[in-house]
Every structure is written in structure tokens, then in C-alpha cells.
């Protein structure tokens, strides 16, 4: 069995039949309808200091149907057994839209094209067909070698999913995604302090659209040992100072900076106020697109789900829009947003194909895709040379940003003093804060060491998760307010 041949929906024909059953149920009763049929299976294996192995497999199969009736949306989702469930979901979605008619300002979608096709993640070795336990055990032992380590987790995750899509316009799409990830998280205690270190990403590990090769390339044992030792070293490290300073932020920290202050700020549904009750709005307005100076000329940020191998890679988004590369920020100027059919139609802005949803059970909203800071030139060491005196900080420890994505405060797991371009003392509890345009306006240079990180992201009511990615090189920022927490 190949990595792409498993489950009940492996056959596109079966998926298509169920999609048709749902569309038939509302045929002629809605100006638009779309159907997402998703089967997913996820494997998670965790080893933790002092605890038994936790291994779990989760399988789900369901359908989500969205209809537009007189300009009003309705959405319904159900676990799926047969075509009756598909039709039931469609009828429920229709009933909800009808109930809201007359009280809602209608949306009119532009004429939609037909987009059909197939897509599969490129996979080396099927992560569901390997034995990961020995590697995880070895990595946990390595992380726990120092006696000051009081808590350690090593984890492996893999997910595969079929996504069949159809809409009333005639698009039929069949995508099979496969992703693999790893996690190391260490906590050390002593000298009246507790410190943590993580690898390869401080947000539930790192996950990519790839197979077992993603794990092999990560040198899990070597890096587990490293972060264990670094967590212990942090216990006796000096606390980072409070001042205004020049800083090189590492790739991981920059990837989160992009997520919070670029990705979310450019979600068009936020900009239009759809999320103001919970997730918030944006300091960027519709009229700012094309003119707002968001950052320095060194800052160019792109959304590109056609880049292979990331957690934000796909051929079609979750409302069937073909993946496309969009420049969000061009040499510091806002050029595009992350948009959906609904939001782009209402705002009159280009459709960028950023409709994402959590499996079959949630309605698509604007989420980041693969959004990254375009690399510049030179290595991290060369960037530190350019920095001169300041700090190098990496791996997020704490993050917070206001509801307009303007005022932020981040902390990192590690920081180093940099003097004359050379890294010196390890510092703990490094933090920095600022406002988004001022931060990006203070970016002087970007290195060429682009790294990509997979993230989960929550949004919506009820809250749903999206899975996306950000790429970032190390970045030199001048005049940053540090030691704020």
C-alpha cells in the first residue's frame, strides 16, 4: 500500500458520488453551494520523562456543506456514513441560510470559474509505516541526561487526509495531504528558576508536508541533547536587560512574528470586521491595500501555497480556489490580503485563495497559507557582523498581540549578547515589544538562511484550527525595545 492508498475515500469516484449527493439535495434552491468531504487519520506518539508512552490514532470522516441563498450563507457538517448524511448536511445548511434571510445584508459572488484537478503531497517514506519508538526513546534519554531536567517530552506526529471538493459551478477537486512532525520540549529546574527549551519549533513541534524523511533530517537525538543542556545553562544565565537595542531575531522567532503581525493582520475577514467579536480586527484597512507603508524596503512578504513541502501547501484552498502566489507586502508596501470568495467580493480586493478550515466540520475562513519573509543576502554570522553590538534572540517562549495586531510583546527561550559581531554570553528571559509598522519599519537587513515552520492556528466561533506554515530568515531590527516583561 502506498502512502496515498488508505482509507474509505481513497477512490475519487466514491468521493465524487458523495459530493454529488450533497449538491443534488440543494440543486436549484441556492445560488451557490460547495461540499467538502474529508477523511483524516492522525498518529501521535509521545514519550515523556517518568511516564508511559502515549500513542494514539485518530480517524475521522465527515462532510461540510455550505450554501448561499439570497446572498446569505448557511453551513452544516456531519460525520459521514452514507449519501443520506450528505443530503442531510446540505438540507441543514439550506435551512440555516433561509432562517437568516431578510435580516442580513446579502453578498453577491462574482462569476466563478470551473477548477478541477488532483493533488498529492510528495512523500519519501510513509510515516505510518515506520517504527519510531526506538528513536523517540533515544531522544528522550538524550534530552534528560542532565539531572536538572525535570520534565521532557519527545513526540512524533503524522497525518494523512483526503479532501474531496465540489461546488455547484462544476469544480471537482481531489487532494491527498500527508504531513509529518516532531517535537522536543525540555524543562529544567534549579537555582530558584525553571527554564524551557524546545526543538525544532516551540509551538507543538514542527510539522511539514513530507514523510518520515522529515524526521530523519532533524537529528532528533543530537538536538534533544542540545536543548536539554541549554535549558540547564539558562538556569544560571544572567537575565537579559531592559533597554533599547539592536537585535538579530532568529528564523523561528521571526516566523511567529510573521504569523501574528503579518498573517493575521492581513486576513481580509478580520479587516472587514467579521471576527471583531472574538479574534479581533486589524489596524490595516481595505483602503490601505496598495499604499500603506507597513515595513522597510527590506521587507517583502509572500503568500505561496504552491511551494511544496510546507504545512501551508495545497493545490486548491477549502472553497476550491486554485493556489496562487501573492505578494502581500512588497518592499514594505501592503499589496494584497489573505482573502476568501466572500471577503474579496465584499471588499473588491483580489481573491488570493486563503480559505482554510479545520477538517470537514468548520466553515472556511481567512487563514494564512504558506506565508514567508523573502530572504535577503548573507549568512547569520554576516548579519551579526552587521549588527555590531546588540543581541541575537531565538525560539519563542511567550507571545501576545492586541486585537488589532498592532501592539505586541514576545519572549524568547534564548538570547545571546553580541559584541563586535560575535556571539557572547547566554541570556535568559529575553523579551521585546513594539508596534507592528514600527517593528517592520526598523528591519534593516534580512539574511539568506530561510527556514520554514509549520503551525497550528486557532480562529473563529466556535473555535477551529488551521494548519499553515511560515518561512523566515534571520532578521536585523534596529532600535527595538527589549526587556519589557
Amino acid at each position, binding site marked *: 500500500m502506498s502512502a496515498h492508498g488508505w482509507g474509505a475515500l481513497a477512490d475519487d469516484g466514491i468521493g465524487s458520488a458523495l459530493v454529488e449527493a450533497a449538491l443534488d439535495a440543494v440543486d436549484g434552491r441556492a445560488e451557490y453551494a460547495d461540499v467538502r468531504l474529508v477523511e483524516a487519520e492522525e498518529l501521535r506518539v509521545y514519550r515523556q520523562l517518568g511516564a*508511559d508512552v502515549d500513542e*494514539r490514532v485518530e*480517524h475521522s470522516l465527515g462532510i461540510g456543506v455550505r450554501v448561499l441563498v439570497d446572498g446569505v*450563507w448557511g*453551513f452544516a457538517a456531519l460525520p459521514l456514513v452514507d449519501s443520506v448524511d450528505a443530503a442531510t448536511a446540505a438540507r441543514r445548511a439550506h435551512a440555516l441560510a433561509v*432562517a437568516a434571510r431578510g435580516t442580513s*445584508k446579502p453578498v453577491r459572488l462574482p462569476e466563478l470559474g470551473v477548477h478541477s484537478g488532483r493533488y498529492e503531497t510528495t512523500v519519501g517514506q510513509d510515516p505510518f509505516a515506520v517504527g519510531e519508538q526506538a528513536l523517540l526513546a533515544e531522544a528522550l534519554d538524550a534530552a534528560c541526561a542532565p539531572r536538572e531536567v525535570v520534565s521532557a517530552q519527545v513526540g512524533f506526529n503524522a497525518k494523512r487526509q483526503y479532501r474531496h471538493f465540489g461546488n455547484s459551478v462544476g469544480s471537482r477537486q481531489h487532494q491527498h495531504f500527508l504531513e509529518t512532525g516532531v517535537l522536543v520540549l525540555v524543562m529544567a529546574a534549579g537555582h530558584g528558576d525553571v527554564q524551557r527549551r524546545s526543538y525544532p519549533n516551540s509551538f507543538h513541534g514542527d510539522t511539514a508536508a513530507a514523510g518520515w524523511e522529515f524526521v530523519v533530517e532533524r537529528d532528533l537525538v543530537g538536538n534533544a541533547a542540545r536543548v536539554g543542556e541549554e535549558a540547564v545553562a539558562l538556569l544560571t544565565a544572567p537575565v537579559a536587560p531592559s533597554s533599547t537595542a539592536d537585535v538579530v531575531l532568529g528564523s523561528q522567532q521571526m516566523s511567529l512574528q510573521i504569523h501574528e503581525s503579518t498573517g493575521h493582520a492581513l486576513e481580509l475577514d478580520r479587516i472587514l470586521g467579521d471576527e471583531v467579536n472574538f479574534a479581533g480586527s486589524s489596524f490595516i484597512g481595505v483602503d490601505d491595500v496598495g499604499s500603506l507603508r507597513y515595513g522597510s524596503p527590506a521587507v517583502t512578504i509572500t503568500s505561496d501555497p504552491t511551494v511544496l513541502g510546507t504545512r501551508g501547501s495545497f493545490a486548491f484552498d477549502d472553497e476550491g480556489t486554485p493556489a496562487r502566489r501573492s505578494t502581500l507586502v512588497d518592499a514594505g508596501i501592503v499589496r494584497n490580503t489573505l482573502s476568501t470568495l466572500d471577503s474579496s467580493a465584499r471588499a473588491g480586493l483580489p481573491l488570493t485563495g486563503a480559505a482554510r478550515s479545520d477538517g470537514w466540520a*468548520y466553515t472556511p475562513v481567512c487563514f494564512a497559507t504558506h506565508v514567508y519573509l523573502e530572504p535577503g543576502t548573507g549568512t547569520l554570522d554576516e548579519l551579526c557582523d552587521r549588527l555590531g553590538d546588540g543581541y541575537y534572540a531565538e525560539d519563542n517562549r511567550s507571545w*501576545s498581540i492586541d486585537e488589532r495586531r498592532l501592539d505586541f510583546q514576545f*519572549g524568547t527561550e534564548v538570547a545571546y549578547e553580541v559584541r563586535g559581531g560575535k556571539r557572547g554570553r547566554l541570556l535568559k528571559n529575553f523579551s521585546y515589544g513594539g508596534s507592528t509598522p514600527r517593528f517592520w519599519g526598523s528591519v534593516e537587513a534580512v539574511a539568506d538562511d530561510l527556514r520554514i515552520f509549520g503551525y497550528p492556528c486557532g480562529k473563529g466561533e466556535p473555535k477551529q484550527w488551521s494548519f499553515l506554515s511560515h518561512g523566515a530568515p534571520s532578521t536585523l531590527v534596529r532600535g527595538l525595545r527589549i526587556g519589557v516583561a
Partner: protein
Amino acid sequence: MDFAAPVDPARATELLASAVRRADADHVEVALLARAGEYTRFAGERVHQAQNITEQQVVVRAVVNGHAARVATSALDRVPDAVRRATAIARAADDTGSAWTPQHDTTDDHLLWHEDTAAFDAPARVALAAHAMTEARQVGATAAGMVGRAVTQLAVASSSGALRHVVATEATGSLTISDGDGSAHWANLHRSSDALGLTPQTVQEVVARAVRTRGRQPLPHGTYTVVLGPEATGELLGFLGVLGFDGGLADAGVGVATEPGRRVASELVTVTDDASHPFGLPIPFDALGTTKAVVPLLIAGRVGGPVTDRTGHAHVARESLPAPVAANVVMAPGTEDDLVAGVADGLYIERFWYTRLVDRQASTITGVSRDACFRIVDGRLADPVRGARFTQSVFDLLSAVDGVGIERRAQPIMNVWNGSVTAPAIRAHGFRFGPR
């Protein structure tokens, strides 16, 4: 539309019991976690997301030679396969483990059902949304929010003889009125929609509060006496878990729950995890079928103890290790109906946003204030102030509480299935806005 348990209760219990009977493991639990919810979201003069979502998952936990493995499926016809698969994974472990296997044999069936919530259907919710949008429009403001009803179902069967089932209604409401650069917010959840309190009067009050925030000014950095609204207080209490009361941390010797009896808050502060309490989202047992004990987290300001699997707080997180979590956190009310009246010079803070842990040892969190926040002068709300960033020790603030309100409201605990925190307003001293 039907408003009922996602899976017929008789079918659910028979399915689970049958799966357990056929299991070939040393111990097995089979749990059905399901929710059928309808949610009416509105913003920008429209109901923009009318949603009807049914989710269900059967989680099998098999234990062989002390090793536990979980297999979950959304398809009820795959449950026998899930049992076989979980058993095979657990059996494949090559040494002896020490997985805890609860031995309870309770058989019961609970119905936490409110007919008023069942009647909170799509037309009723749309009418409420339309009313809020109209009220806002009449003062030149806009309304956004969500109103919903749901049925939560949890059933557990185990090889030690437990066969438990509960069906519970859930009503939720939230409202944000935006007026220029100002705004006000309200939120609550309850098993009963009548107890929710999202009435026309509530809408009117939120609109009026939003109007009062017009022209709000920046808040100077400084240390203030504050009155935190119920939502802001609840957000602070939501950190008790990561400060040591959720399971796992205390076992690792980390966090405040390693020191029972230590005073960390004012004697006015008593907080329990109480699944028998009518507020929030009470549910009588966890996914292992263990009855939820009432766990005192803070007793008159002193540390109680952590929640654990043994107290009925087992929880499986989505992207991380399973660890017990507090799931129906309730703070005891006080006696003051007007906390603002007791402040000569301070701030009223309605809501916090994007709060995150900064330093577990110091119980420091950061975040921003949001929506309707005001200066307090001579016991009355005065000029509105903008949201501002704070970095503040949770226990330092709770130690400085000198007043607790009567009215309580509940809000969800992020990423915790069926989790909520219920809190009153509090008055406290020494809240720091601005960098350290």
C-alpha cells in the same frame, strides 16, 4: 430542526458496552464524545456564519501489560476495529508499563437538559442577532457576536464495569458593539439559555457602554487600583492550570500546587473545580468514566491541590501530551454589587485579550485590556481609556483583592473539551500597565 443527542442514548451505551465485551486487553475504556451545535454568528449587518455542526468521536483506550494506547474514530461502525487496533498497539510495547486503570463500576445516566435551550432555535437566535444589530445601528454603532445552542453527549463503558452516559444542553452568547474607535463586550455560557442573560436589556447596556467609550484616550503607564469585570477575572483564573493546578506539573515538582496551604491570594478568593456547580459547563465524569471530584484550587487564598486523572479530570489535548486539566473552574462570589463605588482613583477593565504566560515561577502573564475600559474617579466610571499592554503577576494581583462582586459569568477555557471558567468581578490593587 432536531435538537437531540448526536447518538441515540440506547444505541450509544449498547455500542460501547458491546465493544468492551469483545475487547482482548487487560483493561479497556470506550468513550463517546459528541456535540451537536448550532451557532449564529453575526457581524457587518448580517448573519455571516450560520452553522450547524455535529461532531462525534469514539475514543478507545486499551491497556496491555501496563501500556496504554488510544485509537479514536468518528465512525460508529469502526469502533470494534478501533478496539482491536488500540489493543494491538498497546500489546506491541516491549516492556511493562504503569498505566493507571480506573476500577470504578458505576452505571448511571444523567440528563442535564434545559427545554429553554432546546427552544433557542435558529429563528430565535436570528431575531436576537437582528435586535442587537438594530440597536447598534440606531446609535451609529455596529454589532457582532454569536449565539448558539448545543447538545453535548458523553458516554463511557469500561472493562471494570462502568457504563455511564450524560446528555447536556449548552447555550452560549457573546456580543461586541463597536462605535468608532470604542467598543464594549459581553459574553456568557450556561446549560440554560434563560440563565444566559442575553436579554434586550443586556443588549441595551452593552450598546450604552460602547457609546461611552467614544473618544477614548491612551492609558498612561503606571500601577492602578482596578476593578476587573467577570470576563477579565475569568481570564486570570484560566491561568491557574498552567501555574500548577493542572496535572503533570505538580508531579514534576513545578508550580504552586506543590505547596498546599501556601497563601497566594486574598482570603476573599476561593476557586474550585466543581462539576456539580450549575454555572459553566458541568459534566459529572471524565472520558475515563471517573466521577469528577470537587477540587479546591484556592481556599480562602490558600493553595488547595491539583486536578489529576484520579479526580476525574483526564483530558486528551489535540497537539500535545494528554494531561489532566481543570474543566469547570468556579470562583465563589462576594457580597459587593458595586465594586467601582469603592475606588477613589483607578480603572475599570472589562476584558483581557491574548494573555500568555511569561514566567511560571513569578506567575507573570502578559496581555492587553480590551473593549470598555474606563478611569474610575470618586467611585464612578469616568473617561474611557484605550486598551493597553500589561505584564502582571496573577498571584500578586489575587493577593491584593479587597472586593468580590456578586454577579458571575462563564467563558470557555481554550482548547479544553467542555471546559469553562466562571468568575465574578473583583477589585484589586497594584495592577501594572506598561513595561516593567
